[in-house]
């Protein structure tokens, strides 16, 4: 309990959505004729066909407590059903690994911190959302968010619960109109802070070394 932090599941919600959407390679969009449920169904269907993937990402945080936008970039690797590696490469390397109920957190020069999802409430929430999305059950999250499909296609999530609303006001995901993969995700917080994550260079069903999900060391 020593390292408790406030819930971040909403942020992970975005992340999870990204993970799912990144798996949606095969579909050709006909978004103009699709309703919200159809659209989510298509994304779900596509994600179910993927066993693993990796991609590059860039995260830019526009926070009032930062004097200027902070950009981090790195690589995301995922192997279904429960292995994930979120690795920042620049400017400060750090790694987060989830492997079943266990996980690792490490940063450059810092100690490797192991955690257990049963014992770490924050990471449990993170993983809970993540696995829900990667297993194609993300529709369950509709209890906590209002979904809106805009032309583009752009999917907008607004939290309906008080807890979620205190951290996030809106999430906006812009999809590739052809591949139904997210090009960018923008998370807006109450007060005007926002974070934008952009994805590129994704590879589907790749052979990912097992060590990626057991070690912090960069590959």
């Amino acid at each position: 309990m020593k390292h408790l932090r406030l819930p971040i599941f909403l942020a992970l919600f975005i992340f999870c959505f990204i993970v799912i959407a990144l798996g949606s390679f095969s579909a050709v969009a006909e978004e103009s004729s699709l309703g919200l449920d159809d659209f989510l169904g298509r994304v779900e269907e596509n994600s179910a066909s993927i066993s693993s993937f990796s991609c590059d990402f860039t995260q830019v945080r526009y926070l009032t407590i930062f004097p200027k936008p902070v950009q981090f970039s790195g690589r995301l690797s995922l192997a279904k059903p429960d292995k994930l590696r979120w690795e920042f490469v620049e400017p400060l390397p750090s790694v987060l690994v989830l492997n079943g109920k266990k996980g690792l957190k490490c940063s450059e020069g810092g100690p490797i911190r192991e955690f257990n999802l049963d014992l770490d409430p924050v990471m449990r929430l993170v993983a809970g959302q993540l696995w829900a999305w990667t297993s194609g059950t993300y529709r369950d999250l509709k209890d906590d968010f209002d979904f809106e499909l805009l032309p583009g296609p752009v999917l907008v999530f607004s939290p309906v619960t008080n807890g979620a609303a205190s951290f996030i006001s809106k999430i906006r995901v812009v999809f590739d109109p052809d591949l139904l993969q997210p090009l960018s995700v923008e998370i807006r917080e109450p007060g005007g802070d926002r974070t934008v994550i952009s994805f590129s260079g994704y590879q589907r069903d790749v052979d990912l070394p097992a060590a990626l999900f057991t070690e912090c060391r960069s590959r």
Partner: protein
Amino acid sequence: MTSRSIISKLLLLAVTLVGIYFSVQVKLDEDALDMLPGPALQGDFRLLQQLGMINRVFISLELESDRPDAEGLASPDLLLSARLLGENLAASPSFSDVFYRLPQGYEFHLVAGLKKYLPVLADNRDLRRFKELMTPELLREKIRQDYLDLNSLAGLAMRQQIQQDPLGFTGVVLEKLTALRGGMRLTIRDGFFVSGDGKHCLLWAESSTPLTSSANAALLSQQIEDALAVSLKDGVKARIIGPLPHTLANANTIRSDLGKLLPVAVIALVLFLLVFLRDWRALLLVAMPFFAAPPAIALLALVYGKVSAMALGFGIVLLGIGVDFAVHIYVGCRSEQSSARISKDLRKSLIMAFLTTITVFAVLLLSKVPAHRQMAYLAIVGLSWALLLAWQLIPGLAGKRGCPSGVFGARLSGASGLINHGWQLRPFKLLLWLLILAAGVASWPSLHYNGDLRTLDVPSASVKNDERVFLKTWGGDQEQAFVVAVAPEQGKVLDINDQVYEILVKEDRLAEVQSLATLLPGPIRQGKNLLRWQAFWQQRLTAFRPQLEQAAIENGFTRQAFQPFIDWLAIEPASMEPGAFLDGPLRPFINSLFRRAVEPELGSGRDEVFLVATVVPDNRQNSDVLKRINREVPGATVLSNSRWRQKVEADLKNDIHRLFSLAALLVIAICTLFFRRLRPVIGVLAPVTSSLAAMALFAALTGGELNIMHALMGIMVIGLSVDYGIFIVNSCLSGLDGRAFMAVSICAISTLSGFGVLGFATHPALHALGVTVLVGIGAAWPTALFITPLLLARPASKEMGI
């Protein structure tokens, strides 16, 4: 039969019937407090009851051993079983509280609560830690970590918390929560209480009804079994720990013992009476106590209000003495020439025996133990009624058989013959008796009264095994002492609890201590902490603020990034209301140590008291600190098993010595008043001295420990033994005719067969009961027959008037 006789018999019948009517409506009370001497000990036990310690049931769920090792992770089946079981038990009205999981999101509520009360929770040690974190080097490191966290995957929603607590002070205070766990080895996984290896999950519940009652225990056990049947997944089993399995195991053992031994005792008794007396109506003699009991029970309920089940059980056993009165009348009347009359000699013996017996029980009315007093009252009323019944009913019953003849006459002749040879080997017999007395006296100092009621506890092998596994899994294998603070106000009780904690801190005895003091300080300590907190920041804030701003800038934040933290420091800190955490997420832990109870004995209404317990290992190292707390902290009571046992032993020992001495003096006085000569008095006392010596010698040879059963049955044996002496002495003085010898023998044999068979019982309480009677009566009977006559002057004529 005269009309007067008919009226008196109808009157007896009416009283007995009224007694039966009222006695069946008496509600029994199974309060263990009734068995404890003195208000102090009863108060201690009541505290344990009020804290819920007595009615708590622990259920440890366990993955079967052949399941694959889950690498320390709790199995979903285990957690699901715990959740289902918890929900099912919570739905039952038999449980007032069921704890199986902390509420979802408890961590976040907890952090928010702790942050709010940081100024009143942080003590000197915490402030020293804060000071370290505020050193420039650690400050920079922490702010850098904040920057990394904010930009990590888990950092998207951490901005507010990092802004408000950049140095993680809340985390420092969170460490205090370990004090809630004490010596228990449990971890919290997804809110469940799980063992370190992930193979066990703990639940605990409190019964709404006392678990010391076997009926309640059986009902509750069935409900738990039902809940387990529908809750546990394959491969998960449960172990139930607490008073419940002990109550059930004891009840089962007693039931099993009585099921086997009672038929034997009854058959032996009936066969003996039928064969010896050749009169089926003699069986009514055995029924006398049962006729005498109802009016006594009804009067007991009228006088005392509630009837202790223990007092009733043992009181009825003591009424067994009533059989002896009936036997003496039966034998006396059957052998009288003019039947249906009680002779003058027999009348004198009966009155004297009655007086001495009643005197013994009257003295027991002065006992500090409430159950003893009720027992004595029941015995006095019951024996009085039993004598009256026997006096009125038995002569007619026996007289109808006419003069002694046939088998009965032969028996009487046999008894007379025994007396004729009684004077042979007189010196040898007296020497043997004196040797027994000397051995009894010599062994007396080695006897030790064991007040630990656990010596009368017989957990089954499975209960013992469950407890062994439980202790191995969850810890807590040391004896525990409870330091209980009691006060009529919440704030006051927490202040007392703080004083206890401060002494433990000063004496460096905090190892495995379970305390609420770190999480729920009382108003006084809150005030002190607050003053320290304010002084701490008054000294440092001016210098610290620019350092924080500088560290922020150096690590990629704006200068004002942590202004919310600075602003929070400027807010007037809030005092923590005593109930702040009581209904919060940590309620399962707090509820074990903090209670609000109704104290009906205070004032005229239902006054409330608050109790806070601190659990301290009850070992030699903590002995001094516990004594110090007991001495120096007003309002705190130390409930230590070892200390408690000593107190129970001392009080009971003192009670027994006092009462036995007084009873002995009174019995001697009565005998002296009746006989006015030394020899008959010694003759009367000879059987009782033999029984006491034999019981002491036997106890010394079998470990030297006496328990409450020895003491209770000792009283009965004394009552019977004195009666034996009285009947024999009176018989000898009035010119030996063998009736008393025969009657005493019938009484002794029926007592030995009725109670002595319990000496073969498995349960230690029944065993002690049976053995005490076997040894005591086994010594008193031959002494009455063979020694008492020798202590009197040799009769001038040895002709037997049959």
